[in-house]
């Protein structure tokens, strides 16, 4: 009995000791970071204070002596003696790695040697930038992530009113608040047209760019007859290059009506009917069907390779690809013939007029909580990037600055933007897309792939597909209780 008690006691003692030891080591472990924390706090605290002070200061004078606008900065004259360091966070990690951004900044420093620009490329930008924005320690210039327009004044400095800014840049209304101030300037614009190889078109004897579906098919046929290139590369296998690319032309490009895509489409009884004049969604997808049926696409569409198509079009093995202008830079970079890559308006003409839709890519925003010096430096930097850097053109983007030189030529094309849904009808498109399983502009790749399959195998005629789409669309309208108005 005694022995057991002794044993129990020793055991208890041992356990207590080990517990204590555990606790001890824990404490030790905890102490170190705690010390770090305090150190960090100490270093951070003044910084935070400063920021707060600056914010307070900034708000008072910025409102009072808000001389700082995009228009007020004369590049190369103002703020030449400003010495500060600003930080720019962006999503173009590829341009950071290939030296494009450091080169641009080196050029910027030739004009403004005092302003040091630190950059940080973020891979998962859409998500991370939101976190960084709410954490507040992100820097001075960033590409504005997806936030509500109401929050813009909290985080960013206005460049001026949208009206003022429209004199200098395109798409000034992308990020605007209720008061009509412009908060974001795109680094490049994206337009919807067709990517093509100028040399292949010239070799095929196509001298003027096709403006209608018939002319386009004729041009593709000429490429097939006169060159070895694949006339139209569909990128069928990648999937997103089918629905994701072709659906992008719905709306103003196909029928010249800016309100059609987001306001009328959902209420239309026969959106896919043949208008007979080469316009509308019917004409859009028919280009793909006809090109496939007439053997004007790649031989084996099921094994197309997205990465592989880039050098192919660069080297003149492909005539055209139906992709947004964002793809231009990638195609140019993929080989030795960047100058052969061209971009043309989509070959649909409505009443003698071609249309293109365009919008800005990510937009520069300037931190509202930065110090005055940094705000000024950031404003100078953004203006220089937009007007002097030539970055937009380098990416093959639709021009942002109205004065900077550009190689993006859309002659005689009416550049428009599809207007947004009517209030209260924002969700209807999603409902119909889901219910009809056509998913326009929402990953409905299968329906466009089906066009290629049908045309290649002869399984269905184009009219049958369109009738099927119309039936699905009407059934969805009925199911969702959407009124048919047109």
């Amino acid at each position, binding site marked *: 009995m005694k022995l057991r008690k002794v044993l129990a006691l020793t055991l208890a003692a041992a356990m207590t000791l080990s517990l204590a030891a555990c606790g001890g080591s824990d404490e030790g472990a905890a102490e170190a970071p705690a010390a770090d924390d305090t150190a960090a706090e100490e270093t951070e605290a003044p910084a935070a204070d400063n920021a707060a002070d600056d914010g307070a200061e900034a708000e008072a004078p910025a409102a009072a002596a808000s001389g700082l606008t995009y228009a007020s900065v004369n590049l190369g004259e103002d703020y030449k003696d400003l010495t500060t360091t600003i930080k720019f966070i962006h999503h173009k990690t590829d341009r950071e790695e290939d030296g494009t951004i450091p080169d641009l900044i080196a050029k910027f420093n030739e004009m403004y040697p005092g302003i040091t620009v630190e950059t940080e490329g973020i891979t998962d930008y859409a998500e991370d930038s939101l976190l960084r924005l709410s954490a507040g320690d992100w820097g001075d210039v960033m590409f504005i992530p997806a936030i509500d327009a109401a929050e813009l004044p909290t985080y960013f400095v206005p460049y001026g009113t949208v009206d003022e800014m429209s004199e200098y840049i395109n798409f000034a209304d992308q990020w605007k608040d209720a008061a009509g101030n412009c908060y974001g300037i795109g680094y490049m614009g994206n337009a919807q047209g067709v990517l093509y190889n100028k040399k292949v078109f010239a070799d095929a004897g196509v001298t003027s760019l096709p403006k209608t579906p018939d002319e386009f098919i004729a041009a593709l046929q000429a490429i097939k007859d006169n060159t070895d290139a694949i006339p139209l590369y569909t990128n069928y296998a990648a999937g997103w290059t089918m629905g994701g690319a072709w659906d992008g032309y719905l709306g103003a490009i196909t029928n010249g009506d800016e309100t059609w895509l987001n306001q009328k489409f959902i209420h239309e009884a026969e959106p896919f009917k043949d208008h007979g004049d080469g316009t509308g969604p019917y004409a859009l997808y028919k280009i793909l069907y006809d090109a496939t049926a007439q053997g004007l696409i790649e031989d084996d569409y099921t094994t197309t390779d997205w990465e592989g198509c880039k050098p192919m079009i660069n080297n003149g093995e492909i005539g055209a690809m139906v992709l947004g202008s964002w793809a231009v830079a990638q195609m140019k970079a993929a080989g030795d013939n960047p100058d052969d890559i061209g971009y043309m308006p989509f070959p649909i003409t409505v009443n003698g007029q071609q249309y293109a839709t365009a919008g800005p890519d990510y937009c520069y925003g300037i931190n509202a909580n930065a110090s005055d010096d940094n705000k000024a430096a950031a404003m100078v930097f953004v203006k220089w990037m937009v007007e002097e850097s030539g970055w937009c053109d380098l990416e093959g983007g639709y021009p942002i600055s109205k004065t900077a030189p550009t190689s993006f030529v859309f002659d005689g094309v009416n550049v428009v933007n599809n207007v947004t849904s009517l209030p209260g009808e924002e969700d209807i498109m999603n409902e119909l897309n889901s219910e009809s399983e056509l998913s326009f502009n929402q*990953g409905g790749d299968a329906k466009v792939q089906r066009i290629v399959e049908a045309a290649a195998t002869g399984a269905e005629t184009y009219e049958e597909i369109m009738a099927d789409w119309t039936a699905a669309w009407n059934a969805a309208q009925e199911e969702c209780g959407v009124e048919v108005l047109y």
Partner: protein
Amino acid sequence: MAAQANTAGSKKGFLQWARSRRGQQIIIIVAFMIIPLVLLFTFTYLPFGEMVGFSFYKMKYVGKRTFVGWKNYASVFSRKDCFGALKLSLYYMGGSVVQLALALYLATILSFKVKGGNIFKGFMFFPYLINGIAIGFIFKFFYTRGFVFDTVLQWCGFQLDNLPYWLKDQSINNISLVGTSVWRYFGQNMVLFIGAIMSVDSELYEAAMLDGANRFEQFRYIILPSIKTIVTLNVILSITGSLSAFEPPYVITSGANGTGTYFVVMNEIAHTQQKVGLASAMAVVLLLIIFAATILQKLFFKYVFRNAEDEDFGAAKKREKQLARYAARKAGR
């Protein structure tokens, strides 16, 4: 102690019970089982139950849900693409028969003494270790016009113009895809078979050889009956696997061009079209089909193997009868 004695009788009763041998047993059993059971419930049955619930709603991942009763199930059965996709499973089932036959054949050969047997085993098992997505990409290039497969066939004297488009031609593209699945899984089946064959007592072979049995007879009468459990298991796994084939069509052709299996269609409906309720109903229906297929196979194998035993049993009886007759004749003489 005094304080404890004062507490309610029921508590005392519980404490006594907890101290009893039976109580201790139950407490220990519950204590050990609670963690795995909670994990199993939380991560298997709860989500499954939720999914069954979803299948009665018209819903997306976000937004409001409307109860629609059996409507989703009705459309699973009325839509062409859902059950049409199950027809593709026949290709994969055909493939699994080839796969198992090949695996069994190679396993039998390799379980005897073969030069470099382990190297062969390694090579043939290797595809199973590769990630399914990577296999998809390998075969995408493998089947591309004029790439690997066509080149190899051209070495063998085929003309490129006479070769089909392995993924474009809708009459053979499913066979091409099944080929990748066979390539990937037969090695694994083979290793399972080899493991089972290893457990056969080698004295049996010697005895059979002394009796003059050749290799095929050894396989037929010694190996196959000894590994019937593992054969049954592999067949069941392969058939259920063919019903839920997903990776080859999803990665290589993204389910386009007539290669969309049931799972690929389900994925499209759930993620692109956002019809979560319908996709859940499809999943439940597939589960029931797999249950049915498994039970049918179980019954089938029970029948097949019982038959074999019956035959033996009958043979023994016959032999006994013969002996009895022989004895009777002898006695009668």
